[in-house]
């Protein structure tokens, strides 16, 4: 049976395998470096998280975070809706959110726009909405998961349930991409992310 084995030639195979490996490693290295760069050079924003349904808190090995800035104030949303050219359903629309430091020490949404504003601190987000319907919007900044180990995750969950103020410090690059930098509860650093 094995006598029938016949291999066809595959020219330049070793070079191709090397190129394959480099391509795949390149993708992974690019992912790592692009996030590390945000951590290294990004502006910091301090964001408050809110307790959410405990059943949603943990899914596997990450804590699901619900930020206050995900649901901006009604007047901010309404003024954003007024800038939109037409009334239609916007599906997964990319928007830019300008942040200001509030009196309570947390960053808050000052404006939302489709185009990139010239504000000093902006975050990129996606949202699906219909202008002038309820005047609400829910923004997703791509920082909704905080991966941690199985021992720490239930502890974080318990503290959030008990009402401890949970703060996430994010690093933001110039085009609005955010990267979680530190996770604090009641002012104490629980986790600080390393570059690599």
């Amino acid at each position, binding site marked *: 049976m094995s006598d029938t084995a*016949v*291999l*066809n030639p595959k020219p330049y195979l070793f070079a191709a395998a090397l190129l394959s490996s480099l391509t795949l490693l390149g*993708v*992974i290295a690019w992912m790592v470096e692009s996030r590390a760069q945000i951590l290294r050079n990004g502006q910091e924003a301090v964001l408050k998280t809110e307790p959410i349904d405990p059943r949603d808190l943990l899914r596997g090995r990450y804590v699901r975070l619900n930020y206050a800035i995900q649901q901006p104030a009604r007047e901010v949303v309404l003024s954003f809706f007024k800038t939109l050219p037409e009334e239609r359903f916007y599906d997964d629309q990319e928007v830019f959110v300008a942040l200001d430091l509030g009196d309570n020490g947390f960053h808050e949404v000052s404006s939302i726009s489709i185009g990139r504003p010239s504000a000093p601190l902006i975050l990129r987000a996606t949202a699906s909405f219909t202008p002038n319907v309820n005047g609400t919007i829910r923004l997703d900044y791509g920082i909704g998961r905080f991966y941690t180990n199985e021992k720490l995750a239930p502890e974080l969950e318990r503290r959030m349930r008990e009402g401890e103020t949970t703060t996430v410090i994010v690093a933001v690059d110039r085009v609005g991409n955010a990267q979680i930098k530190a996770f604090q509860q009641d002012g104490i650093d629980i986790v600080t992310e390393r570059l690599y």
Partner: protein
Amino acid sequence: MRNRIERQINDWLKRGVVDEATADVLIADVRQSASVSDDQQTQKQGFSFFKVLVGFAALSFVAGILLFIAANWDAIPRLAKVAGIAALIVGGFLSGSLLRTTAYARQAAGGSVRYAAFLEEVLYTIGGSAYVGGVALVGQMYHLPGSLDKAMFGFAVGLTVSGALVRSRMVILGALVCAVWWYLGSNSPANLFSVNFVLFAGMAAAGMFTAQLRQDRLLRRACFLALLLGFGPFVFTVLDAVFDAYRELPLFVKLLLWHALLLASVAMMWLHRYRSESVPVFAMRFLGVGRSFVLGLVAVMMLHFVWSESLLLIVPIGYGVVFSVFSLVVHGANHRLLRYAAYMVFVVEIAILFGDTIIGLLNSSVVLIVLSAVLAALAYFFYRIERRFNSETQVEGNDV
């Protein structure tokens, strides 16, 4: 097999059964015939205990590593994790290519290359899986929340490029699965003019190109299947639009349409039976007896729907009965499947007629008696037809 035949030919040569020139021609022919694709080769090799053992060994190895990593996840430095992934990627692809190259050289020297293609694929699969694991690991390291659908795009692109480069069946198959997953989960999969579709089609084309290089029939079919799945949302959208347009048509247009189809079906079946020489070649090929019959059935069924709201149900029932009898008369003797389908149509039409008309007028005991009479009549009818068809077939057989 090739070596065995070559040994046999050499034996014939030694014993003088064939001369040297004939032996050379035979050996050259055997070698040319043996230059089959990897795919054909894999099919020929079939089941192997060695392969099963290697498969289990690979599974145990991967499971062991995964369990070890899971148990010591926090203790392993991040860079060590990434380095491990990188080692698996590079190790998988380079060792796969080295194995193939050395096996090919061994084959050229007349040596055995058993399982080389299989092991090569195993190594590429390890490399490709490590890439998928690496992307997931980086996502975890930096808390990236991207959905699985979006991650699939990254997996598909990486695996397509690497799989096409090393011409690996398994890696390309993995890429196709990821590509289909991503494309069907993307925003507008029905839009064939989107960038997403171009990317998807590009990945499928790269897979097809690889299949062509490998002469790999299974991979080619997988690429076709992936494209078919990718076209699915577009086809459904078109069908939806067609149904919407059909619903808006005036009643007389619908009636015209289905009557025309029924007439065409009957005409084709009649021509096939009595004037087959006058049927154009393309019609003979694409609209044979079976397909004509099915089209007629569709027309009768649609006429039922068109008339379902009115009191004229007797008309499509009449069409159904006449159509089934006509089919039985012209083609029943020669097409057993058509015959049974025509019986079925006949019975269903009678049942509809029975249910809609007579049953409401009778009480339950009378219904059962009438039903038994109808069934007996039908049984007698079919018995006579079957006898007639059987005798016709026998006569034709005797004539031949």
